[in-house]
């Protein structure tokens, strides 16, 4: 083979150096699509033996429609399930767009309009843009909100989507995190987000350190959980300055504007 009859290979074609990614992003859907998809997912997954058609009649589980359920409560229970009941956490069981869609749907049954917090945001202010970069900071050393929060189709969905943005930095630090429990397993005690707890075993996020660890315990292991924890949201904000946190809040507000 001589040098003249071979083509130059653009380096970018070399898949062996550069990982290949799926071309389609699977993220939350726009509001009306989300409602439609949510109704479908609800019909196939939640209605039937449990919440009844359109959530109107509880069969083996509570009625969901028209009960004025708190949006955050809906998110939490759909994502993580209800401890001590048959309601599983769907956060890890359904694809992200479906979980998000079904949450939107159940909220709509309780009078919460389907707002867009997933569509491309309106133009962000310079401060909000700075906040966005800090939220997803890929260069920083684990000081990123996106290790636990997924917003606009980016981030790790450890917790449910952010709905109420605190008004200020003190509000962000003193956020009520009643969904964090205390888990006791084999002499270990740690703050936990329960994902599922059933006769098949327990799945939970261990929040001891960043990043959180999804730990699974078979039914043969006794996992005791109790409500509340000494864990505080402020413990994971320490690497951000107040100024940076203000920008992050501005970003979240910018994203949430309908």
């Amino acid at each position: 083979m001589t040098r003249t009859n071979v083509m130059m290979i653009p380096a970018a074609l070399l898949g062996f150096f550069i990982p290949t990614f799926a071309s389609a992003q699977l993220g939350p859907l726009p509001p009306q699509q989300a409602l439609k998809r949510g109704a479908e997912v609800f019909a196939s997954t939640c209605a039937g033996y449990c919440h009844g058609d359109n959530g109107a009649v509880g069969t083996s589980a509570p009625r969901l429609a028209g009960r004025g359920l708190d949006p955050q409560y809906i998110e939490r229970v759909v994502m993580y399930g209800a401890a001590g009941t048959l309601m599983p956490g769907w956060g890890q069981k359904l694809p992200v767009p479906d979980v998000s869609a079904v949450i939107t749907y159940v909220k709509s049954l309780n009078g919460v309009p389907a707002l867009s917090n997933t569509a491309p945001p309106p133009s962000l202010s310079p401060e909000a843009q700075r906040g966005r970069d800090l939220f997803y900071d890929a260069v920083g050393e684990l000081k990123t909100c996106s290790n636990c929060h997924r917003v606009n189709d980016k981030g790790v969905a450890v917790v449910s989507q952010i709905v109420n943005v605190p008004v200020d930095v003190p509000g962000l630090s003193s956020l009520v995190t009643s969904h964090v429990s205390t888990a006791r397993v084999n002499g270990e005690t740690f703050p936990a987000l329960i994902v599922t707890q059933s006769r098949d075993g327990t799945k939970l996020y261990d929040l001891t350190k960043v990043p959180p660890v999804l730990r699974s315990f078979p039914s043969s292991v006794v996992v005791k959980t109790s409500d509340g924890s000494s864990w505080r949201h402020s413990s994971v904000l320490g690497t951000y300055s107040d100024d940076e946190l203000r920008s992050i809040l501005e970003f979240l507000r910018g994203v949430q504007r309908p």
Partner: protein
Amino acid sequence: MRRRNLAVLFLITTGILFLLAKRSSAQRQGDLGPQSQRGATGADWPSHYGTNLAWRYSNLFQINTANIKRLLPAWNFQTGDYQVGLQSTPIVIDGVLYLSAMDDVFALDGATGRLIWQYKYQPVPGATVGRNFGVAVGDGKVFIGTADAHVVALDTKTGQEVWKVAADDWSSCRCGIQAAPLLVKDKIIVGERGPRGRISAFNARTGQLEWRFYTIPGPGEKGNESWAGDSWKNGNGNPWMTGSYDSELNLVYWGVGDSTPAFYGAGREGSNLYTESVLALDAETGKLRWYYQEIPHDVWDYDAGWEMMLMDREVSGRMRKLLVQFAKSGFAFVLDRETGELVKAYPYVDNVNFVKGINEKGELQGRNEPVEDEVTLICPGNIGGSSWNQSAYSPRTGWAYVPALEMCNDLKVGPPAKYGGMGGSFVFNAPPGHATAYSHLDAVDPVTGKRQWTYPYKFELFASILATAGDLVMTGDPEGYFFALDARTGNKLWSFQTGAGNRGSPITYIAGGRQYIAVPTGWTQVGDLTTGIWPEAATWRHGSTLVVFALPEDSK
């Protein structure tokens, strides 16, 4: 009194018999002393490179130079995933073989190939699974790193998830893991791709992060000044292969890849630490003990990521604790692994022109840097003097067995906006004075670099080498032949057509008292690129099959 004497005599006699039995058993296994015990595998193949000293050498010699001709396939296992071939190294513990393919994990009966369990990893939305180099096994768990930057621990018995952690947010940083994790005591250590490469240790029991080392120092950290402006932010420095570990020094050694853009240095002036470096990290804390940068300010896409063999050898009349790396640049680097001091650097390929040489201080002499928008012939090319496929080291011969590639690049470089993310494009070419590229598997004295014998081959040798106490050196070629050479002479003793190109890392182990040799087969896209220089490459087959050999049952 008399009874007590008898009891003492009995204990002494038993003790002596026990020691004798132990010694003869050790001799049967080809033992050459304590260091060989640490560096060699026995019945199991417990870690990625055999042991954490990375010799890819087994003490087994049931299969040896005298009976290799009788070797036959015992069983095959097809992973069903042919996208990237089978590039992972199996692990074997107590007769169970653990194999990853993409981000699937299989547990197989090592004697029969029967599937015990299978785990299928589900990537996060938008991500796909990718090439995976293998798992680590220990503490009752199988550990795997994934292309979307997760580390997962599975129960060895059931394949069920025990814990799973997003080491990083893939959707933001496009981080990812393909190297096999390294198990060091109670920690599982992984190298991860990212805007800044990172090496992280997780608690093997809980998955909690114990420490993290960024391969590109951040602002205010020593070494950050080796990057112009903000270029450190996307410096890369991918620690994309597995490290080694010395339990006596309690040091983890990890090789770091190149900088971004790989071929174009303008904008990232400086030595670009810790790209192209060997790092020695404290296993407990992840703190940097020392580093050795092989290629300051790389513009040729070399890597210092390859395996690092840890061996104790005499140098100038003094026993030294050494680290030997046959690096992508075509140079072997021999370092003192206690201090990071350079003992020797020598080229192990015949065609090197990116430098005139490397002096005793490790300084690159006469750098031949590609000129913007012009074609420059660079040797070795960016597949390297060797690719990531690993060498082996036999303590019986004292030689390393190294797959060397003689291939160059016609390299044309420029800004990424014009030339893409690597800042260049290239064509594989023959070394000057040769009609085409070629390769050779050499037996080399790892300290002096003196070649003992050479096995020439007309194409590339892209599979790892396995050496055993049966004085066998084994590897496979892209045409599909898996073959065995005499470790002392290089004579070919046996070969077998496996059906597809070999790009993996063969291993050996015992199951049910019988020695097996497991060979991952299936060619790979990077190999397909070489059709530009070898038209025959179009006929090298893809696949993803583990082909496992043993002697016939009656010859145990």
